[in-house]
């Protein structure tokens, strides 16, 4: 990831800005005393675990991948370089991007070593988490369980990069810039990846509705 080292003044078109990383204080504390890594671990545990679960579709495999991700991150922390770009904004965390790059590599190796798709479905692994109707939903109607199942099935059928981009966008709520850092792609490429992935999910949902008929949809 190119960019100025955090804390240094970066010259951009004549102006100078100080780039901050929102995890900087936690990272520095962990560097001084590795036991302080616990704060970063607690902060990002659910995010890394969720990413692994959506990728692997199995709780045990997700736990293994999560464990390896954090052990590797702690072992490599002395060599982590905090970097950010002015356009990443004040909420950017290059530590989170770096952590998810480790998670992506760990999950990719895990998927390859298993040599097949998990026997249990992601829908089953998520169980009751499906079809959560948020009371503060910005849309008028809630998502039905069938729609959620269909969407997850469509996601599972996507190529790896598209599926990962959707997971990082919707589950982790990462910006396009952060996803680009995790996947090692340009921001434009990530936007196109997500747009095409949404199109594939939309087609799957549309096909399902046509099969069931308009009267069956909430």
């Amino acid at each position, binding site marked *: 990831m190119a960019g100025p080292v955090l804390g240094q003044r970066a010259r951009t078109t004549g102006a100078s800005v100080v780039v901050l990383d929102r995890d900087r204080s936690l990272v520095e504390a962990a560097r001084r*005393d*590795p*036991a302080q*890594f*616990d704060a970063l*671990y*607690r902060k990002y545990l*659910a*995010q890394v*675990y*969720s990413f692994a*679960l*959506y990728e692997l579709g199995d709780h045990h495999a*997700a736990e293994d991948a999560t*464990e*390896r991700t954090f*052990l*590797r991150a702690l*072992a*490599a922390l*002395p060599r982590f370089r905090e970097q950010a770009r002015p356009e990443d904004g004040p909420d950017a965390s290059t530590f989170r991007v*770096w952590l998810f790059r480790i998670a*992506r*590599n760990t999950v*990719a*190796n895990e998927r390859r*070593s298993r040599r097949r798709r998990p026997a249990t479905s992601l829908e089953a692994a*998520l169980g009751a*988490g*499906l079809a*959560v109707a*948020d009371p*503060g*939903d*910005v*849309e008028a109607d*809630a*998502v039905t369980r069938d729609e*959620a199942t269909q*969407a*997850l099935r469509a996601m599972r059928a996507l190529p790896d990069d598209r599926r990962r981009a*959707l*997971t990082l*966008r*919707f*589950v*982790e709520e990462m910006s*396009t810039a952060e996803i680009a850092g995790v996947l*090692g792609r340009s921001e434009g490429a990530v*936007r*196109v990846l*997500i*747009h095409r992935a*949404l*199109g594939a*999910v*939309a*087609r799957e*949902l*549309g096909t399902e509705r046509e099969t069931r008929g308009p009267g069956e949809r909430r």
Partner: protein
Amino acid sequence: MSDDPEIEALVADRYLDALLAAVDRHADDSPSHAGVDPEIREAARVLRASLVRVHPSFRFEERLAGRLADLAGAQARPALAAGGGGGAVVPFPGASPAVFDADPLVAAILAGDLDPSDAEAMDRATRQPVPRRPLIVGGAITSAAISLVGVAYVAWRASRPAGHGTGQSNRAMARAARAARARRAAAGVSALLVATASTAAAAVGTAGPGGPA
């Protein structure tokens, strides 16, 4: 690639930014969706509601916290590796063996030989057989010696015609077994671990000879 897909993707990306931000602040207004395909909007709505974040079990969380604390303790310790190029006897470092059992690559990462954020390096590393733990413990010395004798025996037998020298091979095996047993009795180091200088350095998070600082 034409400009159109990129522009459509950019417009959809702005819509997703607004949709996710609206959820964060529990807003009851729908984000502006001018120019966004209705089917894309619908897919985004379903995914936003369906893709929930999941927390692992408390038991898993605490177990991993314990392992991380073990590893943190090992990182904080001063270097324990002894000098010398061939091998050295060192006390057991702070990290629990469970850490290295959980991830055999941690030792290489600690030593600075492997970057876990580098996809290609990790791909290469996971395709190669990795030594489980760079340590040999007590009685394992004997089994390793017997294994070496076994290899030597097979090589010796392969170089001989069939039915020739069988009695000699038995004598060679007996000598090797006696030597291993004598070494085990003389050592008496069941509480000590034997490692090469470089692997010991890896286990305690310091660079080996010639490695990065």
